[in-house]
């Protein structure tokens, strides 16, 4: 079965969709139906969408997930009370959501449950720590829609990306946009020495000179308008701890002293610069690396857009697969073929 064995090599997996209706839930179902439960304790939760515009209304639109006996799951008190399966409560955590605390239980029969887990990255990490103590081998996170941060390597070791016609109905645009996200996810790790030096730093812009001196660019964030790169002839590495945006990338590219530097970001979720700017960086010889990387296991596609437009599934899979050098699956088509 495609990519199920790959998932089992990691302790955590995030499934994220680039847009609504790109088949994220289909993908989660596919995974949950097929994971072997005999030798592994598997827990599933979903990251709620913290704050902002999304509320309980949107959350309750989240589809019910079907669990198999023996699976563990984390959800809010409210959704636990509405469960449609027999399950044993294992833990009531201190993590609160707008729907009550997050509770963890083990399914005793097959059945349906609405998942509404921790609603922030730190809370999710806390819950995952609890799972480790409870002896869980693999945690699967139903990521937030169009929020790649829920697949940050700070949270999960591996990820599956769902994309499709809902993200763009033009096949070439869809492929290019998806390929860019994959490119970011697959950015290479920096070397171990640089990692050890930069990992503890969580804000500001820093440089490492050829002689190894680590310096902070004073009073500067990568968002600053008045950002200047001066006296940087010795600079070998630039580290942006926060968000990487177009303005910064452009200034960096236009500085001739910085043509061979390594640009380090924490992980792919910190890159907010456009594909054009990132690609121009490569052209002038600036290499991008990350401190943390999650392993992209697979990309799935849903060729049908919500408006009803359907892309050619086979063509989409093969062209995207070629562009990203990874297997691409249309899970619905695959299952139809098997059943047919």
């Amino acid at each position, binding site marked *: 079965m495609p990519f199920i064995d790959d998932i089992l090599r990691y302790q955590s997996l995030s499934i994220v969709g680039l847009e609504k209706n790109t088949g994220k839930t289909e993908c989660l179902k596919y995974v949950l139906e097929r994971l072997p439960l005999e030798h592994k304790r598997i827990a599933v939760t979903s990251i709620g969408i913290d704050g902002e515009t999304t509320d309980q209304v949107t959350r309750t639109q989240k589809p019910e997930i079907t669990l198999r006996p023996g699976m563990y799951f984390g959800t809010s008190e409210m959704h636990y009370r509405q469960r*449609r*399966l027999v399950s*044993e*409560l*294992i833990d*009531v955590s*201190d993590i609160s959501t707008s729907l009550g605390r997050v509770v963890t239980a083990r399914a*005793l*029969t097959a*059945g349906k449950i609405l998942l509404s887990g921790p609603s922030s990255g730190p809370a999710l990490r806390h819950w995952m720590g609890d799972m480790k103590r409870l002896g869980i081998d693999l945690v699967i996170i139903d990521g937030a829609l169009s929020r790649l941060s829920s697949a940050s390597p700070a949270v999960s070791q591996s990820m599956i990306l769902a994309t499709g016609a809902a993200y763009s109905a033009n096949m070439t645009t869809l492929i290019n946009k998806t390929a860019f996200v994959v490119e970011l996810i697959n950015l290479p790790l920096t070397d171990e020495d640089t990692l050890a030096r930069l990992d503890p730093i969580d804000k500001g812009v820093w440089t490492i000179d050829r002689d190894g001196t680590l310096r902070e660019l004073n009073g500067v964030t990568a968002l600053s308008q008045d950002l200047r790169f001066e006296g940087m002839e010795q600079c070998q590495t630039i580290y942006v701890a926060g968000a990487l945006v177009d303005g910064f990338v452009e200034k960096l590219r236009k500085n001739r002293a910085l043509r061979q530097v390594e640009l380090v970001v924490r992980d792919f979720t910190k890159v907010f610069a456009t594909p054009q700017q990132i690609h121009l960086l490569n052209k002038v010889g600036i290499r991008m690396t990350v401190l943390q990387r999650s392993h992209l296991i697979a990309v799935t596609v849903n060729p049908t857009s919500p408006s009803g437009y359907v892309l050619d599934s086979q063509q989409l899979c093969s062209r995207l697969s070629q562009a990203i050098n990874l297997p691409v699956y249309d899970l619905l088509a695959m299952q139809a073929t098997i059943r047919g």
Partner: protein
Amino acid sequence: MQLKNVIDSPCGLRYVLDQLELQSGYARRWMLDQHMMTHASDIQAAYAELKHFDHLLDNIDNTRLNTLRFKLQALKDIRTTIGNLAHHATLDDIELFEVKHLAILSTDVARLMSEQGMAEVIPIPDLGPVISILDPDGMKIATFYVYDSYCAELRELRAQMRQHPNQQDDLLLQASELEEDVRNDLSRRLHPWATAIEQAQVALARIDVDLARAQQMRQMGLCFPTLSDDATCHYHGMFNPQVKDALASRGRQFQPVDIAFGLQPTLITGANMGGKTVVLKTLTLCQLLFQFGMGIPAAKAQMTIKDDVYFCIGDEQSVERGLSSFAAEMKSIDQVIQASRTDRRILALIDEPARTTNPTEGAALVTALLQLMLDRPVSLVMTTHYDIEPGHARCLRVKGFEDGQMDYSLVEVQHGQVPHEALNIAQSLGIDPEWLALARNLLSH
């Protein structure tokens, strides 16, 4: 008065409380809800209890201590659930889980405590029967669901559910009604235990708090106080934990202070930067720690019980509220005077009263305050820079600059005459010499 009402007193109580290594959030909330003790028997009982925990730390091995801490970390605040149980509500699965979890936890902690000979110190109600109700299969693990063994019919339905997954929705509906009956029955059987469950929860919080306090006494070098036979308070080697730690981080040492005072007003004078305010802060801190049953930052402390503790310091909060600094100060001292007309036992610590007004009226206000407090049930300790006639008040003076070094110890003097060291100290701070020279010039005329 509850601990949470005084935690942000400018005396630095929060600093000490924040350093307690409490294992559960509930223990902290419980501690902050405690009332200040004003009866000797309560305070003595609290310290006797704390002494048991001090001995416990001497005797317990590390593995057991860590196990105990680990258990206490799992303590949750389930007061809402207990309230529901007490009010005859039917508990849901999550609430039943919480009750079972607490019951098993308290049994585990009770066993650990009794292995250390501490069973009598903080009695934990035996919740064995509660566990039996919620653990029909005797699994002894803190998980819960409406077990099959509660109801044969339910068992049958669930078996069908497993065999016929396509009829699941119907079967689930039938099962959920049976489950609700079981929960009803369980809640009814648990109802008489509501009080015991609550007591167990409080007992566990108390163990957590006592353990953290005993541990803190060792880490910070705090002492067990004794209750004074008369109205006099004696501190030997008193120190301020926060200032001490701040100095230590700069590689410097805190100089402990000896001080005694009774009902006779005490006036502290001394050079600027002589630590007078720190003395008042620490006295306030010690009194609060004492009446909430915590270790005292001193080598030895002989203490008296007060009904009210007033710490009047240039209160920035009142100023922020729009009162002038003088008005804020007058109002807070006025509170002390009003309270002193009752028979309440009062400790009043007043830092440089009337400092922001002209010295003539200021000195008169201070002198009058000393006279007013003379025959009242008030232990008044006050600092001042004014030259005043102390009358029957005791005078203490910070030793001050000697050989270029500040000596913070307090010496008893006959008269409250204030040292004239302001210019020397300003000079040692590197303040503009032209300004200081002009001032010296003015003084000599």
